[in-house]
């Protein structure tokens, strides 16, 4: 029995060892500590070359760069190309790009990673409007220390389009710099407008009428819509309607919203009228964000409201002349839009060396030539005015005048919704806006309820 006993214990230990250790071995290469090791061979050759090229060979540092993809453009490939250029210039820095879905997904992924105890990204592209949430979460650092070291700080900052810098300052500091910036635009099929003898719309009424005229029906079923208004980013796509109606949904302070203002309610009503009065748009909440450009490019709808960042993808797919303009306002010859898109942030959890490397990367990405290239390749508006003076951009706008049109839309842009506790306020607004779109509540009821809940959500921050 005693012999058996010993053997039994041996077997058990073995079983436990297997069950505890077997999974460990294959999983190891993915553990953060190991990651740097696996990258070592890649950086090694450039490290050797480094001393020859740069005067001050620095310790190798690896930073993670989280970015979202929200438009129809090969962002992942473009980013990889920039990283390669950057690494060639800075042989001691390795940038590891991490794609995590759209803006919301990327924000969630970063917060989850920080929360999970993983190394946070050193730098990330997140919505410009995420500023207050990121500061409240104590997740990011101000960029002043880096900016102050720049010899041409003021010239650098003044070169960004002011509309894009609006979300960067808080408490006297600058926390982010614009990167992939866009505006809400109206894409229209210029060929169809010409065939129908229509001018691009200049007011709500002419917009509705044009959309109505371009809607094609086969018996009861619609074979081409006049207009599609996708369901992604409801607050953002709605804002130009509110601004065009006379009242933006957000004020100048970080705790003020105007959801129940009569002009805002009128704007909701106009959205509903586009399907109910003009019969020119699918009813209620519509198809998903990513689908609208394909629908437009394949001729299933004559107009879409979308991000200027989708310009490149649409131009590539469409075999007709694509018109780009701001959204018409309520009164004749008024127009409206709203800026959007992502800024670059540096994260607090990264080491000082990583933060320094992240700043170098930000400086690199915001160079006029890269801002221009990014705009050319995607359709995003270049973040800096000097980007439009680069040779590449000059040549491009000759060929694709729409790229200048998206930039010029900026002059009609109001302030994007950005307040404290944004995640919750945005969800509240979306919830009621969609209920109004879908006819579950009247616009008045919905906006009153939205205002009430948003006020409660903002109360802690006033």
């Amino acid at each position, binding site marked *: 029995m005693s012999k*058996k006993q010993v*053997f*039994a214990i041996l*077997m058990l230990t073995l*079983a436990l060892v*297997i*069950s505890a250790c*077997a*999974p*460990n071995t*294959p*999983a190891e*290469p*993915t*553990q*953060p500590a190991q*990651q740097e090791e696996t990258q070592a061979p890649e950086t090694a050759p450039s490290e050797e070359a480094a001393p020859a090229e740069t005067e001050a060979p620095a310790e190798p540092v690896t930073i993670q760069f989280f970015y979202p*993809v*929200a*438009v*129809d*453009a*090969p*962002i*992942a490939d473009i980013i990889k190309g920039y990283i390669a250029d950057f690494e060639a210039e800075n042989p001691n820095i390795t940038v*590891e790009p*991490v*794609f*995590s*879905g*759209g803006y919301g*997904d990327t924000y969630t*992924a970063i917060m*989850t*990673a920080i*929360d*999970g*105890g*993983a190394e946070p990204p050193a730098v990330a592209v997140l919505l410009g409007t995420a500023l207050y949430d990121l500061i409240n979460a104590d997740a990011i650092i101000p960029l002043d220390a880096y900016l102050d070291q720049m010899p041409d700080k003021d010239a650098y900052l003044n070169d960004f389009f002011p509309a894009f810098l609006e979300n960067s300052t808080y408490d006297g500091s600058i926390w982010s710099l614009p990167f992939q910036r866009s505006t809400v635009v109206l894409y229209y099929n210029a060929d169809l407008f010409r065939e129908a003898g229509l001018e691009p719309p200049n007011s709500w009424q002419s917009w509705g009428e044009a959309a109505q005229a371009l809607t094609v029906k086969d018996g009861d079923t619609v*074979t081409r819509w006049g207009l599609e208004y996708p369901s992604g980013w409801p607050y953002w796509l709605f804002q130009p309607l509110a601004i065009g109606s006379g009242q933006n949904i957000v004020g100048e302070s970080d705790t003020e919203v105007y959801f129940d203002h009569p002009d805002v309610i009128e704007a909701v009503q106009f959205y509903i009228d586009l399907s109910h009065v003009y019969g020119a748009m699918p009813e209620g909440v519509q198809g*998903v964000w*990513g*689908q609208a*450009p*394909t*629908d437009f*490019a*394949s001729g*299933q709808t004559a107009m879409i409201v979308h991000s200027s960042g*989708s310009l490149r*993808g649409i131009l590539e*797919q469409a075999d007709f002349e694509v018109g780009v303009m701001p959204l018409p306002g309520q009164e004749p010859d008024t127009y409206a839009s709203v800026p959007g898109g992502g800024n670059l942030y540096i994260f607090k959890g990264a080491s000082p060396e990583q933060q320094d490397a992240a700043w170098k990367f930000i400086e690199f990405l915001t160079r006029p030539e890269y801002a221009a290239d990014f705009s050319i390749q995607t359709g995003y508006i270049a973040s800096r005015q000097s980007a439009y003076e680069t040779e590449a951009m000059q040549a491009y706008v000759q060929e694709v005048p729409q790229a200048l049109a998206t930039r010029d839309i900026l002059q009609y842009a109001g302030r994007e919704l950005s307040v404290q506790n944004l995640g919750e306020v945005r969800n509240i607004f979306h919830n009621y806006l969609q209920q109004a779109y879908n006819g579950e509540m009247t616009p008045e009821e919905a906006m009153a309820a939205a205002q009430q809940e948003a006020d409660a959500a903002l109360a802690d921050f006033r």
Partner: protein
Amino acid sequence: MAKRTWNRRALGQTTLTLLTWALGLLWIVPLLWAITASLRPLNEPIQRGDVWFGTTLSIESYTKALSLAPFGLYFKNTVIIVLMILGVQLITITLAGFAFANYRFRGQKVFLFLILLQLMIPTAALLVPNFATIRWLNLYDTRLAIAIPYFGSAFGTFLMRQAFLEVPQDLVDAGVLDGCSWWQLLWHVYLPPSIPTLTAFMLSSVAWHWNEFLWPLIVTKSDAARPLTAGLVRFTQLGEIGAQWSLLSAATLLVAAPLLVVFLIFQRRFIESFLHSGLK
């Protein structure tokens, strides 16, 4: 009279056959569509009234999908995760099932109850506290993090216990008389007749964990540990995919194909082992 009954029966059979086939085809339509859509040339978007075939068959959707996301890496991760879970589960459930079937010990019922709690409180519902545990174990963004919550399986333990209980007492007694040690008894007496149950459990474990999505999405941040399912969802979120259904279908099938093919090859045994196991 006899002939009429026969006719009626034949008619009934025909009706049933037609009904079964109609329902069956209804069920397979989504897969068939996905296959044809994935073979459509990329530059022929799907439109009203033209949803089945493009002008030619083309595999460019597959090559494009493979170039846009590291499906090979996702596949490797999935295989490792699934095998890791399966390997550990086979050991844990066999040992525990054996203990509960072969022995009577103090606290047996309490322990069995504690383990069976997992049947009523599925791991998916506990993602919030389990995420904290993963953090505490310092496992975030590893394949082990995806696998470890499933190492102990109440379902498997229970199945193995039931299968072992069906082993005839005579066999057990004979084994004991022969002087078998406990592991010999387990290996030579209990396990052989329980293989169908074990196979069925293996199949359901593999199918379940191959297809799991939410938990892997939460505990991974990078491609290095991401399995196929989470990779597919990230892929569909690439803005440039939009409504390119051929590309989406190709990616979907790339993710579904390995298990689907294995299932097609072994489908008879797959279903048989379900039929003959304790899974009823």
